């Protein structure tokens, strides 16, 4: 178990950066020099510098303050998306894989229907039905994210059921439920954890994409900042540049974290690091 110390050290570094970012996002709103929602038309479209370190947008709102205020919603929304998808998807996958037969068949066809559409298209449709708002955006993305966990968990449950140690446990007289909890789940959890961390960056982009389209949060959120700044890109490019940079950096960090989690937990997949 575990890779060479190098990969573990890398994971520790990314993990502490990630935790730092989470803590930071919680307090970031309070560090903002200005009120993120305060409109000051006299100070509109100001270039970075002076009282506004990253400039102001078309309504004179401080971009630095808005990025800080948006951090918690952007980062936490993606965490919540991953957690909901993971829990729901794993539960569905376990039931499907363990029950087998008709139940498995029905569940997997439902999953196939979900997978037949590109995820973001389905999320846009769901978000459109639910109406705008961060909560609905999260639900919309979780509604499409769970399928990958369901498929993954199911396939692991199916293959682990055939393992000799599971057969040995059956011959010990253990019940199906105890075998599931003691032998199958713990051995399936690693690939699920890897998928979860890799999913973080996708969820982050998803929530930004939905807010960019006006389907998620309308307050300070990185995606919606991009959307609003877009029309003024020629006059004040910083209104687009800095939120985009924030999304970019956090997504990269999530991706690197996901990769190093995989390298440590599941070394066989390491050669795919740069392929995605």
């Amino acid at each position, binding site marked *: 178990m575990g890779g060479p110390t190098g990969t573990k050290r890398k994971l520790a570094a990314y993990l502490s950066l990630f935790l730092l970012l989470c803590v930071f996002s919680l307090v970031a709103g309070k560090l903002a020099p200005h009120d993120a929602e305060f409109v000051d038309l006299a100070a509109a479209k100001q270039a970075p510098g002076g009282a506004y370190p990253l400039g102001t947008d078309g309504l004179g709102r401080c971009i630095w303050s808005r990025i800080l205020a948006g951090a918690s919603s952007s980062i936490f929304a993606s965490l919540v998306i991953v957690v909901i998808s993971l829990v729901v998807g794993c539960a569905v996958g376990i039931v499907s894989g363990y029950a087998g037969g008709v139940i498995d068949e029905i569940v997997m066809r439902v999953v196939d229907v979900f997978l037949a559409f590109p995820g973001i298209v389905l999320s846009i449709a769901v978000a459109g039905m639910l109406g705008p708002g961060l909560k609905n955006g999260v639900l919309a993305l979780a509604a499409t994210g769970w399928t990958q966990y369901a498929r993954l968990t199911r396939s692991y449950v199916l293959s682990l059921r055939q393992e000799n140690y599971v*057969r040995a446990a059956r011959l010990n*007289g253990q019940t199906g439920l105890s075998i599931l909890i003691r*032998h199958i789940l713990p051995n399936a959890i690693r690939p699920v954890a890897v998928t979860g961390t890799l999913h973080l960056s996708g969820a982050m982009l998803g929530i930004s994409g939905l807010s960019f389209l006006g389907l998620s949060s309308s307050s300070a959120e990185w995606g919606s900042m991009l959307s609003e700044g877009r029309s003024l890109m020629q006059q004040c490019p910083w209104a687009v540049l800095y939120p985009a940079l924030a999304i970019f950096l956090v997504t990269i960090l999530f991706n690197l974290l996901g990769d190093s989690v995989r390298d440590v937990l599941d070394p066989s997949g390491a050669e795919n690091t740069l392929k995605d």
Partner: protein
Amino acid sequence: MTEPVLDVRNVTKTFRERGGRRLRALDGVSLTVSAGECVGVVGESGCGKSTLARVITRLILPDSGSVRFCGTEMTELRGGKLRSAYRNMKMIFQEPRSSFDPRLNIGTSIREALRPVVRGKKEQDEQIARLLLSVGLEERFADAYPGQMSGGECQRAAIARAIAQRPKLLICDEATSALDVSVQAQVVELLDQIRRETGISFLFISHDLALVSSFCDRVYVLCGGRVAEHGATLRVIREPREEYTKRLIGSVLTM
């Protein structure tokens, strides 16, 4: 005459392959194992040996036929009754490492087998140490993980786990074929010793006729899902009646 420990009668199992072709893995196989007896099943790969083991352990249900184990019909058992029948039946697998959960140390794996028969953590610990010693492993192996042990050590531990519940029948499915020759001999010797001390019946499934002949009282020769020949081991090897058996013995000798 007392009832045999295992009485397999006329078991048939057909698998449907991809493309709708039918593969008859077992075709009217009958076999008995009496108390304290060691019965071998030999045959080349693909002859239905493993399917037979899976049917006996009720991992799969046969299409027809009966599997009576200690007087109960295995094919009709469900739930709790099946679990208590399993208590008297254990299996040793071909791949020693794969028969242990990679996340659990050997002691924990053996404890799982002991839980239904021994109460109390201290009693279980003592029993684990005793079991490990009885298969020639030191006590410290209780803390080892399957990945840290050699194939032979793992197989010994698997035997320790298998005898933990004092079963009546031990099924060895190619239990020694993944081990190298000297370890193979040691493991067979260990099985023989257990057999003499405990009186457990053995069903020894193997492709290795030489190994079976040194260990088993009677032998069944399986060919294409049918029993080609059966009888006392020495008789079958010295005076094979069937063409297939002769060829099987011939292939061992020419090697």
